[in-house]
């Protein structure tokens, strides 16, 4: 670098300082690209209020008091009135501290979010709960099928079932006895399909599902566990 070049640099530095001084005096406004300040406060201040208590009473099979208790719990965790997926996953993970319940929570979220708008409102929440806790066995089985059918096309494929199975096993965490084997989910899926898939076409339809479940004592009995949850 020769002297002239350095002098040029020096002059440029002086010019820059001069500009800064002018800015200080307010005589020279720099070009501001966008107002990025306001963006920070653009939170989701969306507040969703559920329909009235009477309507919910009609739509679901809960009593007034039960709806009140449910809403209080709901509002406590989600003051804005709706749950988005992140929130949902976070709430659900608090019940399973040792494992990773995020995948299963996603599937649940999709099952609760019946209108697929990316958020679960109180009505969705209560509607889902009503089916599970107060519905008939068939309703419950239907709901479970809906949960398993990830792409909602009416068929449960092996891949979907594998995803579900893995997410359930994930919730157990790493420290289990006996230790979790790699093939356990796959084997579990195989046995499931063997039980459920009547015509062995590789997918399980809703009829096959309900039929197979009704034949299974264990499943029937376990469905009745939900009668007394609330």
């Amino acid at each position: 670098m020769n002297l002239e070049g350095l002098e040029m640099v020096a002059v440029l530095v002086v010019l820059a300082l001069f500009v800064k001084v002018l800015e200080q005096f307010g005589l020279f406004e720099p070009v501001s690209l966008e107002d990025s300040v306001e963006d920070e406060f653009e939170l989701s201040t969306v507040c969703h209020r559920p329909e009235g208590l009477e309507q919910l009473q009609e739509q679901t099979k809960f009593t007034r008091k039960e709806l009140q208790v449910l809403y209080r719990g709901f509002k406590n965790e989600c003051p804005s009135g709706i749950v988005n997926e992140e929130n949902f996953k976070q709430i659900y993970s608090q019940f399973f501290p040792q494992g990773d319940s995020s995948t299963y929570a996603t599937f649940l979220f999709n099952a609760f979010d019946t209108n697929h708008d990316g958020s679960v409102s109180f009505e969705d929440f209560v509607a889902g709960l009503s089916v599970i806790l107060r519905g008939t066995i068939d309703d419950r089985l239907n709901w479970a099928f809906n949960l398993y059918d990830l792409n909602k096309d009416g068929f449960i494929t092996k891949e979907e079932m594998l995803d579900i199975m893995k997410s359930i096993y994930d919730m157990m965490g790493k420290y289990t006895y006996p230790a979790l084997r790699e093939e356990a989910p796959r084997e579990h899926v195989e046995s499931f399909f063997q039980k459920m898939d009547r015509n062995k076409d590789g997918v399980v339809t809703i009829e096959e599902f309900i039929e197979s479940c009704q034949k299974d004592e264990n499943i029937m009995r376990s469905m009745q566990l939900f009668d007394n949850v609330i």
Partner: protein
Amino acid sequence: MAAGVAAWLPFARAAAIGWMPVANCPMPLAPADKNKRQDELIILNVSGRRFQTWRTTLERYPDTLLGSTEKEFFFNEDTKEYFFDRDPEVFRCVLNFYRTGKLHYPRYECISAYDDELAFYGILPEIIGDCCYEEYKDRKRENAERLMDDNDSENNQESLPSLSFRQTMWRAFENPHTSTLALVFYYVTGFFIAVSVITNVVETVPCGTVPGNKELPCGERYAVAFFCLDTACVMIFTVEYLLRLFAAPSRYRFIRSVMSIIDVVAIMPYYIGLVMTNNEDVSGAFVTLRVFRVFRIFKFSRHSQGLRILGYTLKSCASELGFLLFSLTMAIIIFATVMFYAEKGSSASKFTSIPASFWYTIVTMTTLGYGDMVPKTIAGKIFGSICSLSGVLVIALPVPVIVSNFSRIYHQNQRADKRRAQKKARLARIRVAKTGSSNAYLHSKRNGLLNEALELTGSPEDEHLTKTTSLIESQHHHLLHCLEKTTGLSYLVDDPLLSVRTSTIKNHEFIDEQMFEQNCMESSMQNYPSTRSPSLSSHPGLTTSCCSRRSKKTTHLPNSNLPATRLRSMQELSTIHIQGSEQPSLTTSRSSLNLKADDVLRPNCKGSQITTAIISIPTPPALTPEGESRPPPSSPGSTTNIPPIGSNIVKVSAL
């Protein structure tokens, strides 16, 4: 699990429907909700302020007071609410914890009050949320330091005779104020440090000329004198170091400590010089070693607290200093490079290389500006001015951090000293207040004695006293009276007019007391001859019977030191002095609360004999020699006969 999501448990249980169809094994039975109560509102009345919440909210944390059945103890049947006689402000935080799952610590709250409340409600302070946890921890640490300071200062005041010689020496070294010898030693070493430093300085001053027209420094002119002085100083320092080394509780740790390293570095040059005498080869190194003699000045840090604080501050600001150094280095290199290249072209430029420019950069950035190196080209001058401007900024940045650290540590120290000074005054005031209240018992007792049957007394002075006796007081007095009856001993009263007593109490020395007799009500009016022997413990006999018989009484004892010291610190604030009441003839007795309290509980009442001497039977023989070893202090009151209801010693404290 956070509190809020407890409400979502039904949802989580419902979501388990997804597992049912794929499960291979049958599910376990669900827990039955036996008392399926509808959720109800609970009213919590805390000192008049009513809080209401759902029952299930409280049951979220079943291991706390409010969440468990423990709150039933506070249930008020009449008003159907739970009443807590506690602080409503803190309760607000506690209740919010149940509601939101987060415990907050309000800044305005005192840390110990808050801790007490949390302990009452059974909540662990570790649950405090992250937003408030730092503040809580800081306050807690300050409080703990304060407590430690208090404990330390108390421990310092106690005389612990059970220290070994080595430990006493160490204590003397660390706290020169404990004994005169230590103080003398402290000042002597301080003096010699000063002498040594001055010697080193004066050594180099040119004083006078020697024939030959050469100016000699004083060190060479009076070499012998200086050598002797140096030797003396080093002797003292060596002895001091060795003594410290001997007395240190952990020699290894002592050797590694900063002060000991400074000591060693201060005296090593002398010994090395002795060893190497006048060997020409290493005399250069020898001269260098003399430089280390200046480290003796650091020995002053033992004598000056300010120096210690400064050193501690610098240590605690190590990261800021490191940052300062790093940023300075970066800037120096940058500017040195730029200046070098800027000045390269100019003739006879002093900027011969980049390292040579370092000197210019440092001098400019610290705004020294010696002027020995000056840029001549325009570019050089421009960059030079930028350099000096940025230098000011870079140096000024970390300085406030260091200053604030120093200020904080300094004030902490000041606070500790102030606290210690105030504490003495505070304790004295508290003691006066307590003696006032303890006198009430004795007064009322006297009244009771004189007019045992009558509730209301006619005499004017008694009216004044009975008026002020509340139900609680009278119950308290009754309790003390029962104790007296159980043991057959009785309380002595402190006479606030006799300051001798209080001073002896303060020194935790034995107390010179005048014993007066006050036994049972019947016998209170009578005078009894009693024999008293100073060597109490040897007399088992001499008792005054509880109710009728009288005989000699013995007073007693010097108490054992060990239990005494244990309670010494409590002595001032809450002590019980029970002393065997004695006949008027003087005896000096020593009592320590502790011993009395212990002895009192022993079944002394054998038949009708009560030894007021605590020693009486089962006293350990160890007491005797200890008692004997202390010369009874002579006090003006000890030789006078005291009327039966005399005023005496010390204290009755709150039970």
